[in-house]
Each structure stands twice: as structure tokens, then as C-alpha cells.
């Protein structure tokens, strides 16, 4: 059993609210088509994340870092355990939430920046970035302004805004993804290697965005292979290799 030591500590040392806590999480993949192979990713994972702080997941590939983020987002189905969101007016277990609740969580509470951009062909980059705000009912003009500001900050040239990002370079696609993840403010943000294919300058912009989100009180769980970024943003580090069963 591995409880992150910080969990008990933080209750004493800070009065920040815990926003997300994971209890005894297990994830097993059963590959029915491959001789029913069973892949045990993790079996007893616990952690908690406070508002305004960033927890970084460490560990070699295959330890389940991305699997954990995907589970927190409701994308992967966990095998057992709890994923509790601590709202001001009560708690909610993501692992047991209905699809309708998950839509709401993804609209308003949990943001996720994945490693890869997956979009409808033909839709311009600007519209893709605006979408999370439009989904919350923000006026189009206002959403457009915010999207433009963010794309400018992330150094996406204006001539690309009206084009579909399917033909963009890896680094450009990643910045579209980042813009989409940061345009609407979420109390909980999951970041899966957001800086993997960025140059030093843009990496700096992403660090700023993360710092700003923390200042707003966002609880962040992230994977950063890049040590520079990790050292800048991490308040807490969890090594999944040590947490493994």
C-alpha cells in the first residue's frame, strides 16, 4: 500500500483544499484477442492533489503514467478503486459517474491536454481552440478574442489560424492542443507531456501558462519528461515505479 506521504502532511502544513484524491486505484488490461493476456498496470495507487499545486508523475515508459491520467479523465475504465473529486458542495467518484456527469465534468471541471491532437478534418485551428468556451455558452466574439490571444502567445502564425491543423507540424499541433486545454479555466487540469515537441521559447510559454493556472487555484496532474519544465512547475512528485504493485 502506497499512500503519498504528502497527503497526510499537507493537511497540517497548508490550508489549501484537496481537489482530487485517488484511493487504491487498480488498472488491469485484459487482451481478449491475445490469449486473454492480462496486463497489470498498477494495483494500489493512491495520491491527492491540492488546489493551486502541480503533481508530477514520474517513472519509465509503461509504468502507467498516461493510463492514470486517462483514468482520471474518465477515458479509461478503472478496475477498482476510487477517483474522488472534492467540490465545494460535496464529493464525486469519477469512476462511478454516468456519461452525462462525465460530459459536465469535462465541460466545466476537468481539462486534459493529450499528447496528440485529434480533430474533425476541415475545421480551422481557431475554431478548434474556441470550442471549449463555446461549449460553456460563451459568446463567439469573446471566445474568438481569447483564442487569438492564446494562439499569439503560443506563436502560431496568424496565417495558420484559418487552416485545419491536420497538416500542421508536430510542435504546432501540440500548441493547438495546449491552447485548447488552457482557453477555458478548469479547476483540475491533466497534462500529458504538453512540452514534448516544443522548442525552448514555446516551452517557456507553457511554463507561464501552468504557473498562471496554479495561481488561479487549478490542481494539476502532469507528465513531463523534460526536466527543466518539471523542476519549474512541480510541487509534488510521484514515482509510479515505487507505487507499482
Amino acid at each position: 500500500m502506497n499512500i503519498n506521504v504528502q497527503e497526510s502532511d499537507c493537511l497540517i502544513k497548508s490550508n489549501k483544499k484537496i481537489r482530487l484524491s485517488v484511493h487504491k486505484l487498480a488498472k488491469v488490461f485484459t487482451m481478449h484477442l491475445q490469449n486473454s493476456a492480462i496486463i497489470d498496470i498498477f494495483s494500489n495507487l493512491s495520491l491527492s492533489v491540492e488546489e493551486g499545486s502541480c503533481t508530477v508523475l514520474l517513472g519509465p515508459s509503461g509504468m502507467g503514467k498516461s493510463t492514470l491520467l486517462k483514468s482520471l479523465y474518465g477515458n479509461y475504465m478503472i478496475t477498482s478503486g476510487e477517483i474522488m473529486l472534492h467540490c465545494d458542495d460535496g464529493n464525486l467518484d469519477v469512476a462511478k459517474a454516468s456519461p452525462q456527469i462525465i460530459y459536465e465534468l469535462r465541460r466545466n471541471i476537468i481539462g486534459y491536454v493529450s499528447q496528440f491532437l485529434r480533430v474533425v478534418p476541415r475545421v480551422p485551428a481557431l475554431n478548434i481552440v474556441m470550442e471549449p468556451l463555446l461549449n460553456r455558452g460563451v459568446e463567439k466574439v469573446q471566445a474568438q478574442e481569447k483564442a487569438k490571444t492564446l494562439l499569439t502567445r503560443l506563436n502560431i502564425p496568424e496565417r495558420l489560424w484559418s487552416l485545419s491543423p491536420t497538416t500542421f507540424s508536430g510542435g504546432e499541433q501540440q500548441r493547438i492542443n495546449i491552447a485548447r486545454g488552457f482557453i477555458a479555466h478548469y479547476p483540475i487540469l491533466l497534462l500529458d507531456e504538453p512540452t514534448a515537441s516544443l522548442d525552448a521559447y514555446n516551452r517557456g510559454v507553457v511554463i507561464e501558462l501552468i504557473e498562471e493556472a496554479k495561481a488561479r487555484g487549478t490542481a494539476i496532474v502532469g507528465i513531463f519528461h523534460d526536466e527543466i519544465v518539471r523542476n519549474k512547475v512541480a510541487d509534488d512528485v510521484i514515482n509510479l515505479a515505487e507505487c507499482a504493485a
Partner: protein
Amino acid sequence: MKLPVLNEQPILKVKDVNKLYGINRGCQAIGFDLYPGEVLGIVGESGSGKSTLLKCLSGECQPDSGDIIFNALSGEVLNLYEIGEAKRRLLMRSEFGIVKQNPRDGLRLSVSAGANIGERLMAVGERHYGGIRSTASSWLQQVEIDAERIDDFPQSFSGGMQQRLQIARVLVTKPRLVMMDEPTGGLDVSVQARLLDMIRTLVANLNLSVVIVTHDLAVARLLCHRLMVMQKSRVIESGLTDQILDDPQHPYTQLLVSSVLTP
């Protein structure tokens, strides 16, 4: 950070619906709720019962047993196969919209594009010619067909244009529940992408509830919030679209997902 509140009622409730043509042919033990604004995809191989289920839902095929309950705009709660033929027909051309896989099945080929759209409006009581024509023209533009072609016959349209015309014909009466059977089937990929983008935008802008049958998992991923996977007449797995496609649990779903070719 507040807990999500759901105060919307389902627009459609499906309870233990069965329609069998033979052993495991058709659909059986189907149950689900559909919420306003939600897009539900039904996926599975040919012969798994997807289209039979869709026909039951759309009022075209009475199930052997089970209930399909629709929350009408008027506030009435209607049991689709207990309200009588006349009322069901009215529902099918007003609050329901049915998009056929083959646009030629959903369009009238012997009348102009404008008349195809206008006809549905007249069926729900619209009488003013000028109003009908201008509505038809604005719908042509919404589905990206040049309004100048309002008097052309659908035969002169390409497959993709015919499909977009069919969608305009269906949506013009502002249905609340739209059912689509393979709407992008048989279209080449460049046309598909355009249609997908259009359907997505219309669904979001009009807050439509949609049930869409498709065997194309890429289409399902881009359009659907939630999926039901069917095999041999039964739903074997259901859930959030990305969860079903990224972490399928059932052996058959794993087979479906792993069989997709990515270019």
C-alpha cells in the same frame, strides 16, 4: 468548483425492446435513455441489428415487445407504439427527423431541391409560398448548397450534395430527435469530412438529440458522445465514445477497434 447538476430529463427512454426475425436476428433486450443534445452512436457489424433497432426507435417498425417513450415538446409523455398510427405519423414528420443512408430513399427525386425542403414544411402546416421558399433557400445555404440551385432536381446533384439536401429536408421542421442510418456511407472521404463537420455544427447549434447508426468507428469518434456496441442482436457494451474506443472491455469490441485501418 461545484458538483455537476443534471436537471434535464431524457428525451427518449427505451425499455427492454425486442424485435426478432429469427434466433439472434434483429434486436433484443435493448434499453437506454437519450438526453437532449446527446449524440448516441450504434456500432457493430452488418446484421448485428443496428438498423432494426433504429427502425423501431423511429416509428417505422413496431417491436415485438418493450417500450419506446418520447418526451414531446408539448410536455406529453408518448409511448411510441401506443399512441396510434395517426399521431405517430405526425410525430415522425414533426419532432422526429429520419435521415436515410441512401439520400434517394429520403428525397423525392421528381421535384426540385426547394420543393423537397418545402414539402416537409407544408406537411406541418406552413402555407405561405414566399416564406417557404426563403426558408428553403436559407437551408440550402446552411448545408452548403448554392441557393441558385433551388429549382434544380436532386438527380442533377452529386451523392454528397443529395445527402446534404436530405439533411436540410429533415432539419427544416426543427425536429428534436434525429435518427441517421449510415449518413456518410457510400460517400468519398473528402465529402465525408465536410458532411461530418456540418452535422457536428448543426447538432450543437440546434441542440439536437441524435441516434446514429454507423459501422465506421472514425465517424463514431468524431460525432458521438456515447456508443452502444451491438453483436448478434444484443448490446454487448456501452459507454462514453472515447472510453469504448480507447479501452474496450468486451472481446468483440476489442476486435472491432483493433480491426480499424488507419491510413
